[in-house]
């Protein structure tokens, strides 16, 4: 039942209004609280921005991956905002030192990336360890722009770096939530999710820092390519599909279609004459 409810919940959430996904998600969790953890982890919602008081009110993005209870861990200060109690903090998840170093490096690097591609917005990278293998880790790269405007771009890249033999596999699940609003007159919003995987030969004899740089470089290149692809997909899915729908409503190319028909008939006649 859990799986079916979970799938059903996901299906419902996919078919509901994306602009109200947070409300719908909460209602689903209310309906089936056992699915709360999975749904919160699996359903991407628009990113929220918080300011890290420990990092001079630097903004950071909040998602379920850096949340603990109602607080979100800031990548800049590695502290939850709002601060948790000591007891809560003991149970709160924190990345290991190595991963934290990598996380800091990743935040710095993706902040540059954000500045280059978004010319604004907010970026945050959160990493965590996967099991006992120190080499494997996971994380999330968050990119958001348009918090203060009606339109927004939310990019959520869930990364998994797994060392399989002599290769390092990078599996990235990307979700882009696009919302286009124009003063209540028109809204166009949706989300697109794609999962990509790419493997690199495992480097040998690299220091921790070098290994971090290597990982960040690989991740950065992957995120860059994926985002560009996703952007094109969004353009096709949203805008071209809407155009098709628009043309279905009223065909403005009747003349051209008739001309095409005549041309096709001529071609067929020519072929028959051959």
């Amino acid at each position, binding site marked *: 039942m859990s799986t079916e409810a*979970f*799938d059903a919940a*996901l*299906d419902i959430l*996919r078919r509901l209004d994306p602009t109200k996904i947070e409300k719908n998600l*909460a209602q689903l*969790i*209310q309906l089936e*609280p*056992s699915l*709360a*953890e*999975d749904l*919160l*982890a*699996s*359903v*991407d919602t628009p990113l929220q921005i918080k300011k890290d008081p420990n990092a001079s009110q630097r903004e950071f993005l909040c998602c*379920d*991956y850096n*949340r*603990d*209870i*109602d607080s979100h861990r800031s990548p800049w200060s590695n502290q939850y905002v709002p601060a948790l109690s000591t007891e*809560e903090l003991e*149970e*709160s*998840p924190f990345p290991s030192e190595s991963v934290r170093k990598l996380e800091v490096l990743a935040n710095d690097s993706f902040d540059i990336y954000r500045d280059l591609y978004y010319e604004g917005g907010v970026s945050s990278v959160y990493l*965590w*360890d*996967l099991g006992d293998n120190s080499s494997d880790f*996971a994380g*999330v790269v968050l990119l958001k722009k348009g918090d203060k405007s009606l339109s927004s771009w939310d990019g959520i890249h*869930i*990364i*998994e770096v797994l060392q399989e033999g002599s290769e390092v596999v990078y*599996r990235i*699940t990307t*979700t882009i939530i696009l919302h286009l609003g124009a003063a209540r007159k028109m809204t166009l919003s949706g989300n697109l*999710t*794609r*999962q990509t995987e790419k493997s690199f030969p495992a480097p040998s004899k690299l220091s921790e820092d070098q290994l971090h740089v290597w990982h960040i470089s690989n991740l950065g290149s992957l995120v860059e390519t994926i985002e560009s692809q996703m952007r094109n997909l969004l353009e096709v899915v949203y805008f071209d599909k809407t155009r098709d729908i628009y043309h279905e409503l009223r065909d403005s190319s009747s003349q051209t279609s008739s001309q095409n028909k005549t041309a096709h008939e001529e071609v*067929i006649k020519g*072929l*028959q004459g*051959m």
Partner: protein
Amino acid sequence: MTGLMSVSERDPELDSYLERVKQLDESRQGRRNRSGPSTVKPKPAHLNQSYPAEDFKKAQVILDGEYVSERYESEGRVGTYSEMAYRSAYNYEQTFSPKKHGRNSSLSPHKQTSLSSPSKITSSRVEPPSLSKFDDHGAHSKTFVVSEEDYLLLRKLKANIGDDDVESESLPSRGKPRELRTLEKNSRELRTLEKNHRPQSNFSKRNSYTDISSDDEETPPPLPSRSVLHSSGGNSDEADIPRAPARRGVPKIPPKRAQFEVHNNTKPRVTGPPRKADLDSNIEEMEGKDEETSTNQGSFSSLVKDKRKELYSSIARTRPKEKPDLEIKSDDEQDWRPENNEQKSRSAGKSNLSQLSVQPQRHVEPRSARRQAPLPPTKRAERPTGIDTERSFSVDSQVKSNAKSEHLIPKVPLKPVSLRECPPKESKRGVEDDKPILDAARLKLRPVKERPQVPEKRVSLTSKKDAEQNAVPPKPILRTVKPSGTSKETHENIPEALAKREKLAKAPPVPQRKISMPDALKRAETMRQNRSKNLTTTTKEKPVSMDEGNEALLMARKLRPLSDGNNLKGTNHNNLSENDDVQQNSNNLRRFLEKEKSKTFDGFDGNAQSPVAIPFMVQGTGAEVKKLFKSKTESSLPPAKKGNAPALTHVTKSRARGPRRKLPSGIELTPN
């Protein structure tokens, strides 16, 4: 190689041609010799009067034997001629000889040389006049050769003796009479000097010429052709001197050549435009040559003994003028050694031609050269290099005569004997000779006659070529070369080539392209067939099933009461037929219903995937067709919907869930 062969082959042809011409000339000479005296007759009497009696006396003295040359003695005809003939000849000489044009000196040196040094000098130049056909005409009746044109020119010149200068000027192609005045002056002086003619040695003459040449060297050498012309006036004497002995067959002496070279030098000087200095020098030279002129006069008197000789002496004077000096050298050596009648005739012909060109002068030769040039191009090259320049010259003159006589030739050679026998033709020809217009007509006819000659040459050439080709065509050799291997290979080569061709024909993918087109056509045909099938099935099924069924039912209902009592079988049949129709209709309906349900129906397996195009008109008429159309569309949609439902995949399910963490406070509250 072929070119050389052709060149070598042309020569014998030319020779044969020239021989023919010679024969024709000889035949003509025979005729003219018969009519010869008529040519000599027209000597105007006023000319006889115009000349002083002293000249006659001198000539008489010469005829008496003072200057009897060896050749004349050998001929033994010196004293046979009468004074009338002498006068006529002398007048002819005076009229046409260079004396009247100041060329008297040309005659005198001949005579002097003949007298003083009969050995070489006489042999060089005096012979052409000695070979004059008049001599032979009296003896052999074939020696005189004069073309008709030349003869006509002579006639005209005789008629217009008084206007010789004008005529010479009027004639365009026969040279330019620039120097006539100077020559006339010289001739007058020479005439005066002739009275005191004294024999002089050839060396003195030569020296005098050399002096002239030395003087001439100062002046730039003029053009050779004109130099010859002008030299004929003053230096023609010099030119004539060496030739006379040459014709006598006297052995040559090297100094002769030197003399001729001197002539070469002297000629240009004379040819130059008339200058006072030149004239003075010429006069001085002539004065110094008083003795020479006297000797010339003496030689002339010896020549005058024969009318014919005189005529040809005057003719011969022109001849050396025409010829370049270099030719004269060779003439002395070779051509005149053997004195045959033929050679004489040749020389006479030449002399005649040259004589005719005396006053028009040298243009006769260029004409001949021009006419000859196209015929024997090879001999042109041979002329400068050729050893027998005399022969070449003679050939030239013969070619001239040929060119003129060619038109007459084809008629004559075909019937030479008959022509000789037929007097009227000869008389006609004599009349024609008097009328130049007829000559012009002949000239017009010439090209027509040349045409057959050309093909003859071609035939000869072709025959030779054919012979060569027949010899060469062992081009089967090429066949043998092709089978360079063995004979079996030759047999095998053909099938190999064919096999290769077949392979090559197979190689190109052209047929594939052709096949591609029929595919489209086949598809189109299949489309049509499908359409037609659908239509036929629908159209046939409809009426057969519904309409015919209804009609059958109606008919059955109508027939039932009739058939019930009469024929149960028939009712049964009708019932059966109705049942069959109903079954058919039901089957058709089933088929359509099954079509709607499944695509994999038997009758539409292949057509299920292909789109079925149904025309609008048919769709509107048949409801079954509408069903069919709907079934297609509707049946295709549901499975797609069914397939799409499970297609939803949630990628986010498999992604990393993140670290373990506590749920938000609000959510926690809700489950509670």
